[in-house]
């Protein structure tokens, strides 16, 4: 099968409007006869479900949480990008497009990214109209801040809870449609297979998590918005329930999986404290607007700190190594995430880590507090030399900006980040890879669309901060509602899809077989035992730095672990009741397959780009070395019965509007 990205012809700034002018439409009376299933209710799924229902389609929406409002988009902190240029600092659609492609290390599809930048402005308008309370200036207009990898302030925010506010906006739009009966909401349901009829996605098999019933749901199209697969690492900033199952089941039914190895390791997370750890907590990238990252310059200071003999505040300014400012003077602490993460690992590997495990660096707000304090003192004509007053005024400003994050840090670490620097370390956060989609956001299964983090399309090999929220809402509010109409226009005479077709029968049987196996296995170890083992293999050998030997080993070890899992996993309870162990087991089973494909993809990509760093491919000073001649393509994998046997399909990335150059933030 040949990949066809279906990018419209014409100049890049005309593609989307021309496309919209020429697609087929479905008239309102016919929309009432068409059903669409949306799986996942985060920013992508929530916005898609609401918009499709507003247009008149019958929507069935599914989420595994007890309410659509709890999808993990809610945890996004920092903000959402849009090229409004409200600050007059030179922003434009083109710049947002350019920054995103460059930030992604030239591994994203130009046409999709340009469209994303184009609709970004509508998102802000739409959200304000919905009553999303963005941060404002005293004049009543919207405020912006700056994020990594860009030189303008284009990020809109609501304190450190932007994801929450945007998701509640989408949730409110959904609620309006649920109240009108246009969305049927299925809470506490998990999709366990996709059903294809005559090659087209026509439904799903879902498990009701409360009573364990296996249900068949049919529709004319299926939209997968189930987020990323970072939990393959066991420890990540994802929610405990975030999983790859829906995407993976679609993959096994024919949807190609693209660039699985592109993972974002976020530089500012709270470090791991022990084996009991169940998840990692992110400290928003927005903190890098004001926080300065450092480790001690002298090895003996680092050792003394680790042993508890020295406090960071006792280290003199000249004995601190602000390594990002040193290595990347033009972007400083605001380099992109992949660059900041690798730099932290480099310092810690060299022995300069600052916590007991040696895997932490400082994020220090002392100079920001001082700077803001002096500014306030000047504004209010107070004494700029009164250190106590300056601290108090500066602390107030910092508290206003990041108060909830500082509080979160203090509760977890039991230290006051206003007086002692925060400790941070990189952690798995986001996955740029995902199901392959064309310009219409359709996967290689006809009628199966994939939105948001679950697809691969917009962020290349590295995502810039505040772009995930933008993509989720762009896909759901402004892209899919057009592209799906063009497809559904052919279904106005199809009528309801019956659920007693043999295809539904087969898929349901498939699901029941896996569940039966897991329930009757009576092994010796819990699901978490295997998940932690998988996570360790992934972090050690498929993590921030990868090499051919480690990746080959990882593939074998994962395959072996998968075998052990099926032989020895123990799932308590029954399949016909509320059973959280069974839920986990079904998810981990899929992670154990994805992990192997992930390593295979990383092994085949003989270059370093964005979040994918191959130790064999680096410059003398340790920067990533891309190979555009051989690897400027999307790697889309076709399932062939076993992740190891997956077949590679290439979509060449053609850059007509941006020149490929070596990414430099120096």
């Amino acid at each position, binding site marked *: 099968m040949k990949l066809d990205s279906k990018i419209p012809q014409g100049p890049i700034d005309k593609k989307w409007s021309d496309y919209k002018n020429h697609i087929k439409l479905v008239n309102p009376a016919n929309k009432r006869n068409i059903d669409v299933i949306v799986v996942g209710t985060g920013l992508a799924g929530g916005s898609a479900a609401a918009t499709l229902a507003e247009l008149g389609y019958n929507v069935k929406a599914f989420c595994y949480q007890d309410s659509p*409002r709890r999808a993990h988009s809610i*945890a996004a902190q920092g903000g959402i990008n849009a090229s409004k240029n409200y600050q007059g600092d030179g922003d434009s659609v083109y710049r947002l497009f350019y920054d995103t492609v460059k930030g992604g290390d030239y591994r994203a599809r130009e046409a999709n990214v340009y469209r994303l930048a184009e609709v970004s402005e509508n998102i*802000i308008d739409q959200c304000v109209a*919905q*009553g999303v309370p963005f941060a404002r200036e005293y004049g009543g207009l919207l405020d912006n801040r700056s994020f990594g990898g860009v030189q303008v302030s284009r990020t809109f925010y609501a304190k450190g809870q932007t994801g929450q506010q945007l998701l509640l906006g989408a949730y409110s739009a959904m609620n309006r449609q649920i109240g009108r009966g246009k969305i049927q909401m299925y809470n506490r349901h998990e999709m366990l297979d996709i059903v294809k009829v005559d090659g087209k996605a026509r439904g799903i098999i879902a498990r009701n998590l409360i009573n364990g019933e296996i249900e068949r749901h049919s529709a004319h199209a299926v939209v997968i918005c189930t987020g990323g697969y970072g939990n393959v690492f066991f420890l990540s900033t994802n929610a405990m329930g975030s999983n790859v199952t829906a995407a993976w089941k679609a993959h096994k039914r024919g949807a190609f999986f693209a660039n699985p190895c592109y993972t974002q390791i976020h530089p500012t997370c709270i470090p791991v404290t022990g084996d*009991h750890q169940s998840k990692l907590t992110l400290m928003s990238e927005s903190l890098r607007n004001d926080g300065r990252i450092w480790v001690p310059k002298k090895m003996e200071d680092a050792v003394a700190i680790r042993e508890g003999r020295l406090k960071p505040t006792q280290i003199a300014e000249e004995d601190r190594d602000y390594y990002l400012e040193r290595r990347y003077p033009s972007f400083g602490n605001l380099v992109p995430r992949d660059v900041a993460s690798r730099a932290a690992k480099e310092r810690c590997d060299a022995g300069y880590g600052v916590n007991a495990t040696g895997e932490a660096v400082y994020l220090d707000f002392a100079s920001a507090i001082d700077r803001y304090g002096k500014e306030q003192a000047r504004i209010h004509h107070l004494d700029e030399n009164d250190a106590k007053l300056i601290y108090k005024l500066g602390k107030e400003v910092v508290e206003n900006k990041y108060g909830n994050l500082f509080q979160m840090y203090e509760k977890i670490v039991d230290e006051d980040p206003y007086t002692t620097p925060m400790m941070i370390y990189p952690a798995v956060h986001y996955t740029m890879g995902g199901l392959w989609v064309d310009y219409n956001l359709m996967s290689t299964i006809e009628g199966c669309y994939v939105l948001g983090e679950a697809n691969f399309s917009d962020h290349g090999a590295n995502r810039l901060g505040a772009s995930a929220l933008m993509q989720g809402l762009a896909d759901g509010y402004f892209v899919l509602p057009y592209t799906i109409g063009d497809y559904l226009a052919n279904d106005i005479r199809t009528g309801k899809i019956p659920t007693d077709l043999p295809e539904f029968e087969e898929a349901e049987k498939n699901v029941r077989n896996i569940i039966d196996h897991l329930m009757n296995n009576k092994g010796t170890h*819990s699901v978490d035992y295997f998940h932690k083992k998988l996570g360790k293999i992934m972090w050690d050998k498929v993590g921030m730095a990868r090499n051919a030997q480690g990746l080959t080993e990882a593939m074998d070890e994962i395959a072996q672990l998968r075998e052990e899992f099926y032989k020895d996993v123990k799932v308590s*309870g029954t399949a016909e009741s509320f059973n959280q162990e069974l839920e986990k087991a079904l998810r981990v089973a899929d992670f154990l397959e994805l992990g192997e494909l992930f390593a295979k993809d990383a092994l085949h990509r003989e270059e370093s780009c964005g979040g994918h760093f191959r130790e064999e491919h680096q410059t003398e000073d340790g920067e990533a070395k891309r190979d555009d001649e051989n690897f400027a393509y999307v790697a889309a994998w076709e399932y062939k019965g076993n992740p190891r046997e997956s077949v590679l399909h290439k979509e060449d990335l053609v850059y007509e509007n941006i020149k490929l150059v070596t990414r430099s933030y120096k």
Partner: protein
Amino acid sequence: MNLTLKIWRQNNAKEAGKMVDYKINNISPDMSFLEMLDVLNNELIEKGEDPVAFDHDCREGICGMCSLFINGEAHGPDRGVTTCQLHMRMFKDGDTIYIEPFRAKAFPVIKDLVVDRTAFDKIQHAGGFVSVNTSGNTQDANAIPIPKHDADRAFDAATCIGCGACVATCKNSSAMLFVSAKVSQFALLPQGKVEAADRVRNMVEEMDALGFGNCTNTGACEIECPKGISLENIARMNREYLKASIK
């Protein structure tokens, strides 16, 4: 730390439940409360017993999925946090900890510590939105300036995570804090004012129909709310309701 846990076990909504004792040893003060329960559950699974069901997801205090009534308090003894952010350093070696579900007529138990909070969603269906379609053709986001003070207060109200601690902690099982947070958010913004009267009427009507109690101003909800949602919101909702009633 070594602890005794007294945990509510209940198979499903129809069967009766009871408190069951568990001993747990070697708990680190740096663990979160839910990680302590993970340890317990792993021990139960290895022993072939049924693990304790409890709701949780983001484990960073924002999704609102986790609940638990710990030693008689919603989200436990700490202030301004959800159960997933509660750490074991709040307890002492040898403590006995009582763990129960959020109890309210409108929140039936699903299993053990897991309750059904869909009543909250139903209240939102009745009016927790601004009726604007997602056409992308709305006016420019900066067309209507909003005083920073109003925007900030709307934001404060909007930070409610819908966990249900207010209902669980209220002696009347009232949902007034939850409902008033949404009513206030929209009442404070020009975009929400257009439908303010219908919104407050419909949401209050739905809240009453679902079996939540009334507010008697004890203020317990505000103290136990992990997000510090203010009682002022209830006052504002009452004003909005009165305004809507005499229109």
